[in-house]
């Protein structure tokens, strides 16, 4: 065997093994990634809010001054203003604290008020992280995002896992390029008939080659997003800053240079908001005040991206004088190759740079990549079907491939049901685990049935599950389609339409598979 042939053989082995070793986790990350491209839409679909008013359009300045009087001075260091539940205004006053229990973080008072009248709806004391996590309408979307970002594994370990998966995907994509000698011709491959190995290879090649550039882009940006804070920052801090991560973060992010704790009256926030909206050409999405009530206080205003931009904008103002200070970059204080690259990572990974159009393209390519993983696994198993160990893998693949979307749809049902009882944060992840266990159990109990039959059942169940979901949402107090049109709830219509369309596709596919089997059965009897 010559060197080139041996290298190609090794590359093929690396391509197959790299994806096979962690195929199940890779599939979970890819499928959830395809879904969470629409995480904001899923949140709004979950909430079904009526109302068109931006919570920060009201007299924010008046509300903050009034609420500040009710909060102890030592808890006024940071003020975080966002849109809260039901379109209300959420205001948090807090400071970094370490409690006797050992817990540490931003601790303080949270208020939920009517953005116009200032009527208080809710007041809480606690850690900011816990308070913002307590948003029932985010339970489903946050669960899916967490599954995608860290596979629900807490701490850095989850990020390491998804980072490794990103690198594995990158290796599989690059080796895929190296082993395909006729990549342009492969773009136009048509599947050869029959369920032969070549048919599986044609399917995998077609899906893989079309999504190849996207696979490289997504795996690279995804691995960066996982490793940047979990590994990159600690390593750079260790060697360049003597292990001081805060100092490293301060250098990378750019810090507020002037420190002046002299008490000072705060400038009119309304004027700052108005100026920031003019500069960004977009409404304000959130506002943060650092060192409230001091001469060195800074106001940060956050804005979504305009249609021609990749990222949203963040501005800094002096809170004591109202003077515009600078546009905050994601990293660093000035334009540079490093800051530009870092800023490109998130929009390129999530596809949220050109509104719904780019996200639809990202979701479609994500679906192609998900299919590439499944078809690659099918090909891998088909080549080893004579080996009894790998033969069992075929059933595992069927259970996982159909089980995961089924579990996600089942979790959505439980979310809608528990949203009525205002406790979906507790139930959503637990429901997912229970449904996964049930599906594994069903897969085990039906192991005598052929893969074709069980796939048809899974496919049909998924179709019916998706078809009924929008109607179940309506019956559990969700926004009706008429209300959605009236209140510009396009997200509700988008997700409902997607569920119905995909439901029809899966149900029809299951029905066709049944009809074909019935026909061949009748033929064999005749």
């Amino acid at each position: 065997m010559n060197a080139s042939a041996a290298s190609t053989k090794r590359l093929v082995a690396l391509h197959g093994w790299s994806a096979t070793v962690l195929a199940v986790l890779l599939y979970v990350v890819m499928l959830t990634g395809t879904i969470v491209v629409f995480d904001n839409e899923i949140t709004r679909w979950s909430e079904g809010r009526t109302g068109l008013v931006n919570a920060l359009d009201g007299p924010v300045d008046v509300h903050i001054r009034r609420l500040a009087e009710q909060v102890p001075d030592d808890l006024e260091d940071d003020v975080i203003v966002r849109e809260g539940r039901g379109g209300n205004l959420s205001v948090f006053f807090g400071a970094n604290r370490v409690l006797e229990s050992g817990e540490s973080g931003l601790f303080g008072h949270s208020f939920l008020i009517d953005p116009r009248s200032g009527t208080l709806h809710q007041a809480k004391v606690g850690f900011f992280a816990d308070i913002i996590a307590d948003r029932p309408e985010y339970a489903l979307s946050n669960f899916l995002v967490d599954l995608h970002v860290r596979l629900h594994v807490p701490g850095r370990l989850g990020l390491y896992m998804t980072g490794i998966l990103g690198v594995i995907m990158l290796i599989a994509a690059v080796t895929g390029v190296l082993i395909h000698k006729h990549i342009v011709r492969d773009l136009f491959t048509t599947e050869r008939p029959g369920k032969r190995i070549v048919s599986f290879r044609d399917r995998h090649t077609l899906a893989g080659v079309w999504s190849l550039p996207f696979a490289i882009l997504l795996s690279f940006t995804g691995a960066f997003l996982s490793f940047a804070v979990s590994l990159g920052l600690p390593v750079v801090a260790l060697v360049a800053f003597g292990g001081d991560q805060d100092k490293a973060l301060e250098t990378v992010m750019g810090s507020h240079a002037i420190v002046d704790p002299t008490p000072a009256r705060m400038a009119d926030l309304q004027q700052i908001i108005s100026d920031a909206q003019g500069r960004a050409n977009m409404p304000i999405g959130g506002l943060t005040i650092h060192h409230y009530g001091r001469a060195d206080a800074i106001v940060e205003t956050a804005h979504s991206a305009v249609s021609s931009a990749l990222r949203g904008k963040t501005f800094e103002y002096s809170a004591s004088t109202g003077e515009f200070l600078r546009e905050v970059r994601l990293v660093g204080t000035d334009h540079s190759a490093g800051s530009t690259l870092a800023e490109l990572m998130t929009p390129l990974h999530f596809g949220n740079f050109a509104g719904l159009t780019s996200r639809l393209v990202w979701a479609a390519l994500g679906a192609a990549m998900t299919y590439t993983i499944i078809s690659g696994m099918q090909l891998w198993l088909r080549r080893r079907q004579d080996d009894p160990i790998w033969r069992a893998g075929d059933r595992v693949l069927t259970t996982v491939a159909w089980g995961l979307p089924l579990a996600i749809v089942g979790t959505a049902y439980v979310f809608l049901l528990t949203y009525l009882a205002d406790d979906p944060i507790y139930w959503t992840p637990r429901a997912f685990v229970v449904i996964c266990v049930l599906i594994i159990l069903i897969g085990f109990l039906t192991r005598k049935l052929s893969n074709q039959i069980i796939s048809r059942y899974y496919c049909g169940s998924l179709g019916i599950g998706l078809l009924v979901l929008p109607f179940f949402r309506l019956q559990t107090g969700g926004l009706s389609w008429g209300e959605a049109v009236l209140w510009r709830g396009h997200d509700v219509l988008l997700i409902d339409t997607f569920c119905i369309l995909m439901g029809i596709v899966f149900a029809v596919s299951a029905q066709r598979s049944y009809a074909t089997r019935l026909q061949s059965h009748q033929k064999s009897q005749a």
Partner: protein
Amino acid sequence: MLDLVRQAEIKSRSFETWLQKRPKLWRWIFAGPVALILSILAMASLPFVLPAGRGGINHLVLPVVFFPVLWAGFVIFPVVSHRLNRIGGVYGGLTVLFILMIVIGGFT
């Protein structure tokens, strides 16, 4: 001079013979743990040699951005390359270089 070249050649061949006793194992080691260690060392050492740039953060951000690419590259190289002693030499040399960069950069 010729003797030195010949001696180096003989050493290189004996190194290759030693690696060739278990080629698969060595490729796994080079593409597995060695590739990970090398990419972390690269990320740790590059801040000392890359220019800071106008924003003053290029040397800190670029190694972190390219860490996944470096790791993938260090995994693929031992698979593509035919000669094991070349892989060993390149990876050994890079390890020494990265460690030197960290040591020198850390003291200056």
